[in-house]
């Protein structure tokens, strides 16, 4: 079991989780956060707050954010729900598995994006520390994003 902290990023700032929860792995933590976001959605709407502006930042015990879950992701899952209900059990299970994989893939994308962001930052810093060098031009934006459509 590992302790995970579910910090909540809101429109008003970060609402930290000071207690954390012991869970078997990061995938369980992600799924817990996902279901929690589903539960919080109606409560937030009732309080006239916009769930789209909420994100769970799941951190490990070193304070390192290991997963993020924007509440908007809950909507992806809701699409095609009526179709899923009429499917036989095996197909439903397969589809749930696919959904889960897709969400994990999205989380990996997010991490790659973060890594890329920090790479760009370091590049900017490097450039700033050598101002006399000729400009290298804006960093190119290769179309590297893997397809996420089912």
């Amino acid at each position, binding site marked *: 079991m590992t302790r995970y902290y*579910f910090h*909540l990023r809101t429109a008003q700032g970060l609402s930290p*989780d*000071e*207690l*954390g*929860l012991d869970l078997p792995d990061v995938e369980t933590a992600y799924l*817990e*956060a996902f*279901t*929690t976001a589903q*539960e*919080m959605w109606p*409560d937030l709407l*009732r309080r006239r707050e916009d769930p789209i502006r909420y994100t769970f930042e799941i951190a490990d015990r070193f304070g390192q954010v290991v997963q993020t879950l924007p509440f908007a992701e809950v909507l992806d899952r809701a699409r095609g729900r009526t179709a899923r209900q009429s499917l036989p059990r095996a197909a439903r299970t397969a589809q749930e598995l696919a959904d889960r994989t897709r969400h994990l893939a999205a989380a990996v994308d997010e991490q790659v994006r973060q890594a890329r962001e920090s790479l760009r930052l370091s590049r900017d810093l490097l450039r700033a520390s050598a101002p006399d060098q000729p400009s290298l031009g804006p960093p190119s934006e290769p179309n590297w994003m893997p397809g996420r459509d089912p």
Partner: protein
Amino acid sequence: MLNPLVRKLENFAWLSDDDRRALETATRQVRAYRPREDVIHEGDQPESVKLLLDGWACRCKQLEDGRRQIMAFFVPGDLCDVRVFILRQMDHSIMTLSPATVATIPRDTMLALMEQHPRITQALWWSTLVDEAVLREWVVNLGQRSADERLAHLLCELFIRLQAVGLTRGNTCELPVTQGELADTLGLTTVHVNRTLQELRRDGLVDLRGKTLTLRDLDGLQRLALFNPNYLHLEHEGEELNANHRRPDAPGGAASPLP
């Protein structure tokens, strides 16, 4: 120590010493349970009534896919269904949540008790009605209240129920329930319960440290939960059934045996 069932029933009516003795005798067959042990399992044939003398238990139902709903908490003095032995098969399980002592009241003892002690019978009716009222309140909780209101409501209820059987100290009580179990009670995830608990703590309402629950502001908690304790019926509503024309704690109130 006063039998917790006597203590509980006396929230309704004052019992005679004879009534009390009969309850003591009926609840002598006891067994100790470990935490999270089934007292009776869904599908079992109920042959007796279970009374929780010490510790905590819950009534729960598990779905095929592992999801679980806790439908009631039992605290000392609570009977797990007064007339359950009438049924052939349990449609849910009763599981301990902490180390617990459970008395078994055999079917015939229970029937004799109700036949010979009309005050006990009425007090047991009251207890059943309160159990049903609690269940109704839980339906309202799950159907209408938001996550923070649900948790606040449950904590108010448990504190007041424990208070009624003398198991609170000032504004603290024991809450030997995991956050996962609270989650299965409130229909929320553990993460949600955890977050909500921290919100209640930040607002200065409650503090849950380990298994110790402290209600920092019971009034505030009740306001948040829209909590009205009327459904617990703790106002000695059967006082006219006073066996000895005395309050049990009044001095010199010697028992006159039942007519």
